[in-house]
């Protein structure tokens, strides 16, 4: 399926109305891991929403990315429960090993790193999620072992 066909399929599922904008973008982001310009142009056309508003939404909400992401998306939880149990040290380790800071993607497009405010697994903190899989009870060393297992 071409990119625009995929975009159309998503829009058809949600209904082509302006109020569906966020839901459509979320699904696009979920499928493509970022929001390419051509896709956004199509969304604007079909939902009848100006590009300026799409840009505003895509930057206001943290879920969206306007640049391509790495093969593996790392989310390190910096929520309170994880923070008091040493999430800062997990993040430092991940930054050191990947060479990127939160919000960045490495040059080989292997990893993207983000911090999040709570994954709802607080009982297992510090927690890091990679491609949707949760790794809990981490220390700096544990985080290093987890990262090594990703190709």
């Amino acid at each position, binding site marked *: 399926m071409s990119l625009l066909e995929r975009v159309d399929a998503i829009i058809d599922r949600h209904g082509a109305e302006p109020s569906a904008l*966020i839901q459509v973008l979320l699904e696009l982001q979920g499928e493509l891991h970022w929001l390419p310009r051509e896709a956004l142009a199509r969304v604007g056309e079909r939902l009848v929403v100006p590009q300026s508003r799409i840009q505003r*939404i895509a930057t*206001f909400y943290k879920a969206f990315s306007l640049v391509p992401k790495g093969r593996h998306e790392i989310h390190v939880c*910096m929520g309170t*429960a994880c923070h*008091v149990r040493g999430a800062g040290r997990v993040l430092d380790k991940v930054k050191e090993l990947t060479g990127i800071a939160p919000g960045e993607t490495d040059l080989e497009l292997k990893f993207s790193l983000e911090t999040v405010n709570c*994954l709802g697994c607080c009982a*297992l903190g510090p927690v890091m999620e990679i491609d949707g899989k949760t790794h809990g009870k981490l220390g700096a060393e544990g985080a290093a072992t987890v990262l090594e297992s990703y190709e």
Partner: protein
Amino acid sequence: MTRIASPTELERIRAEVLAGRDPERPHVAVCVGTGCLATGARAVLAAFEAAIAEQGIDATVGVRGTGCHGFCERGPIVVIEPAEICYLQVKPEDVPELVRETLVEKRVVERLLYLDPRSGERVVRESDIPFYKHQKRLIFGPNRTIDPTSLEDYLAIGGFRALARALFKRTPEQVIEEVKAAGLRGRGGAGFPTGVKWGLAREAECEPGGRSSGASGASGKVVVVNCDEGDPGAYMDRSLMEGNPFCVLEGLTIGAYAIGASEGYIYVRQEYGLAVENVGRALRRLEEVGLLGDDVLGSGLSFRVKVHRGAGAFVCGEETALLLSLEGKPGEPRTRPPYPAVRGLFGRPTNINNVETWAAVPRIVSEGAAAFAAIGTAGSKGTKIFSLVGKITNTGLVEVPMGIPLREIVFEIGGGIPGGMRFKAVQTGGPSGGCIPESQLDLRVDFDELTRAGSMMGSGGLIVMDEETCMVDVARYFIEFLTDESCGKCAPCREGLRQMHRILTRITRGEGREGDLERLLELSALAKEVSLCALGGTAPNPFLSTYRYFREEYEAHVKEKRCPALACKALVRYVIDPARCTACLICMRKCPEGAIDGGKHRIHVIVQEKCTSCGTCLEVCPARFGAVRKISGVPVPPPPSEEERVIVRKKKAAAP
């Protein structure tokens, strides 16, 4: 199941479901909530199915995946009914033995039972585990007995009886009176009386020709479930939504009837994939059987519900921002009034409540207001679910009656602080809340008492902190959080928070100056007074409450450049105790900076100029040596001389 077109049919179907179930029939409940899934519950569930089939007992034994039981840290959790045998941290490898021993031979497998650290004894039944024993699990309890994908399971525990009663035996006004009489207050943060709020939405008039919501052309009133759950450290809404979506939907439908709403929205935080999946499935099922949609239960009520995923913005938990987000716009709070009850989604009268609030409604309608109001304190009725997390032995979700002493939650249910550490404070109320110190541990937890102590209920996160948690850093952490999450629309919040953050960061780096604390107090007063929404208005709370109870920690940072909790990286040095170091080489090899000097038989020393205080050496030094320590505010002791560093090992052969 065919369409359920009347209360009589509902009862007939319930009777059929129950007739097919023998309460004495053994069955295995495996928690497949998010916490247990993360520790491998899916494989455990599959292993049970396989092992039961292999033993050839699948006709007599049932297996079900349930929602979160709450004791997440010890997951995966397995409970074998009817004896309620609770196994913790079960691995797939353990399963064949559990099936053979417990299900076939009827014997308990001791090693997977809870070990009570106080009595040294194993505990068999889940409800006898101290973590559960002191709880009162009225709202959260059913999670462990039902499969969230099974409507039959929900009907078997009396589901939708409350809805039938509301629709056929009560007028909308009577339902509202009942909720008022129960004294239910909103669980989303502010604690506003739910019945009063419903009454306002009921009385509100729909604007003739008011804007309609796009293509669907709908007008009329709206009800919304707030499952944005933005407070980090709180996850009870997630567990309810995942584990018992039918209950939330039943409460919502009762609310729609009482208020006169035709449309409902469920706003779910982006990170909560499983909640979206489970509530979506429940919705479709209810539409199929006529418990949602047109003519609900044959009552004439027409009510449709949609699920809307959040896109990652804390401020969208605030009701006016949430409604804008539902309209597909950036979620920036607006001033109230008009309240959503008058002008909400697309200008239509809207009633928004938190997940836990909605989940309490069916019980109020079925058991009556008096039963609900019999629990709790004068101003706060019923039970509340808290997430007990941080530096606490038993981490997880706990449901307790309002008014329970904080001490009981931390020490009886939570089992105290791990690692022999000392309790310091509990942070409640999320980023806009505050810290409750040890001197206030006897506080009876309810809306008003927490506010009086300078904190608030918020959504129910209880983050326990011990002597190693720095309170200045905690304040800095929350202000940073709120600086990031401020939508930026009003200046006192946007600029004021940024300045507070700068000052607090400076202090935790040991660069605090004279006058910093006074400046923080001024900025706090300003943000409180003039911010547009509660985010800004309550943002100074983490600073104010830690300053109120832990002023000496602030002063130690500013005046002595010392972090008493040994937590602020810039103020802490790591040192190796020569008397305890056995020259095992572990820290030397692991140090990412190569900052440890040492060798075989040579006591290790940290080269302070190279050390970045990353803490790896402390983490990897084996507990039996415990040679690495942190110090703050005192000079680093001089290293031992080269001669003193040589370790002469006694030869094994020389031993007698």
